[in-house]
């Protein structure tokens, strides 16, 4: 483990400006409006895909900027990828099990 001295942390702490945060928030609100509006349209089987697609974009914005993932070490993003792949395996295996029962 890297021991950082308090005055000089090994990682340069990134300060995100209020304006960037506000911009991301505006984007999130806009995407919320879009997903609510899209739910009123009969898109058939695309309803769920649209809803999950917009939710994924919103999540990406929160993770990258609000949660500072964009400014963290690469290892954080690799760990997240491992966690998401694990969840994806669970989902795929469950549906295989369900489909062939």
């Amino acid at each position, binding site marked *: 483990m890297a021991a950082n001295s*308090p005055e000089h*942390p090994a990682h340069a*702490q990134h*300060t995100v400006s209020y304006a960037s945060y506000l911009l991301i*928030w505006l984007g999130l609100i806009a995407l919320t409006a879009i997903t609510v509006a899209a739910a009123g349209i009969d898109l058939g089987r695309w309803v769920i895909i649209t809803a999950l697609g917009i*939710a994924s974009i919103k999540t990406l914005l929160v993770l990258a900027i*609000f949660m500072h993932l964009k400014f963290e070490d690469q290892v954080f993003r690799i*760990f997240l990828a491992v966690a998401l792949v*694990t969840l994806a395996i669970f989902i795929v295996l469950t549906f295989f099990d*369900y489909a062939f029962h």
Partner: protein
Amino acid sequence: MTTHTPSAAVGHHAHRDDVGSRMGMWLFLFTELILFGGMFIAYAVYRFKYPAEFQLAATELDTFVGTLNTIILLTSSLTIAMSITALQEGRKALSMLLVTLTILLAFGFLVNKYFEWGHKFAVGIYPRSPELLARTSGEVLYFGLYYVMTGLHALHVIIGIVVLAFNLVFIARGSVHAGAFVKLETGALYWHLVDVIWIFLFPLFYLIH
């Protein structure tokens, strides 16, 4: 072993690993991902099996309240993110104001949830109610998942309020400050996760038409 020491008292030689602290919180968040992920998988299987029943049951949720709560949580994520910037700039009062706003928004979310659930209970829709059991199994499953998933989420909101309240005290006392704010960062990470879970719960329960 590392002994945790108040940084203000020890000064220059306190052992600190901010990256490690944030990584620890991220690892914890991954376990949360798997916890909620399992429930989302259960939801997916049953929605796949009972599409019409889920659609019918979802019409009973109030999209307006759901949208309002989405905006409340997104805004609370904004305020907690900004509180870190404020602290980094050494603006303690502003940072405390932003954390307080986040906590107030969290309470607002819970108040809406209280009235929402209260209304459902009033019309007789709650787990194992005679009114609900008289319906199709798809609708029973929808409301079962609705109560468990939004309930577990609401529990996270309550825990988040406690975590942020501790941070407010830490900032007030000066143990969390411009030179040492990883506690606020990890608290904020937890709070953003609560937001992310809701980003998925909202369309999956409120927006099936």
